[in-house]
């Protein structure tokens, strides 16, 4: 389609547009179902069985089972919907956001206290900031990968 998508060159960022929304429709609607306490109980009692009630792709289901939010977003998930999974797990928004960077909970929290992630080098793909693909995962996990 000929509509502009001026936002595709931002590293580590997926804009939830109509195309993503279509891809992620049932993944996100599954997440919405977790706003009801009785559904949270059923989901926790058998995640796979609960997921199988939804017309989601196998990859989407696996991303949920793995709590792999980056993967879920690439498959059409939106963070405000996916956050219902985190809420079901008793996780805070900071824990969820941090989990997508590869950093430990502590590393991420400390980055925020130090003033957050700098936009420098993270505005366009191809720059050298810490959010660029070539620097993933971040934190100790990344340093370990490099040493190995």
């Amino acid at each position, binding site marked *: 389609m000929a509509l502009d998508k001026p936002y595709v060159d931002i590293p580590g960022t997926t804009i939830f547009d109509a195309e993503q929304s279509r891809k992620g429709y049932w993944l996100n*609607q599954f997440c919405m179902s977790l706003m009801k306490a009785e559904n949270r109980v059923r989901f926790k009692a058998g995640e796979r069985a609960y997921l199988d009630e939804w017309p989601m792709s196998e990859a989407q289901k696996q991303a949920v089972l793995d709590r792999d939010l980056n993967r879920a977003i690439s498959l059409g998930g939106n963070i405000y919907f996916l956050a219902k999974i985190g809420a079901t797990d008793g996780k805070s928004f900071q824990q969820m*956001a941090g989990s997508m960077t590869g950093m430990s909970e502590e590393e991420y929290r400390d980055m925020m206290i130090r003033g957050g992630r700098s936009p420098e080098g993270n505005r366009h793909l191809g720059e050298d900031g810490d959010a660029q693909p070539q620097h993933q995962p971040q934190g100790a996990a990344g340093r370990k990968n490099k040493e190995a």
Partner: protein
Amino acid sequence: MARISASVYTSHVPAIGAAIDHGKTGEDYWKPVFAGYDFSKQWMKDNKPDVIFLVYNDHATAFSLELIPTFAIGTAAQFKPADEGYGARPVPTVIGHPELASHIAQSVIQDDFDLTIVNRMDVDHGLTVPLSLMCGQPEAWPCPVIPFAVNVVQYPVPSGRRCFQLGQAIRRAVESYDEPLNVQIWGTGGMSHQLQGARAGLINAPWDNAFLDRLIADPAGQSEVPHVEYVREAGSEGIELVMWLIARGAMSDVAGGPAPMVRHRFYHVPASNTAVGHLILENG
């Protein structure tokens, strides 16, 4: 004749609501955040409005992917705090103002804004956290509130220019209401934050502060800034800031009146993943 006396701008971070609800406002992490609202709480007492027109966004709470209104105005008599997955916040039910809300809806629809009218809706942290920040923990909110929800979740979200024009239409609508109500308009969400992907945690304090400067002094100019700049500079969820332009557009200077007075300005990093920004502007 009703009039808009002031506009209030503030972030609406859910973790701030949790800190209030769980009695953590005195912790070192949170103290500086709440200190920034000490002035505001007193100001609210000294300048109690008759109605608050509260612009916010729903975060996949009242609206799922089944139905996504670009602009939704709440015309009901009341709105319950939503259960966002952690149980509902222990805050008062929001009392609406059906007469003024319907009047504004009628007026701005005739002014070519294609609103969705909502008579049943739970309100999430986007609406209740600003009330908590500005009013503390009262038994009841100090006045009726008209919820006005803007889609900033699924793209395309309304442009800054459209939001700024809508604010102007809202001012005209309020001023054509017969009862002499004192109305405040609040714009919420932002400042810079990103909640997703490898870029999660992005904060751009210089950009945020330039936004505050320009929102005060050159809102028409700011309203021309395209979405992609918000996303690139202030993080994917920084796009919420377009909602501040609705409140700003409703101030009298935009229609030729005197410049507003900056009664309060505050900026702090971090609250959870987010920069906290806050402004109070009074009409001169």
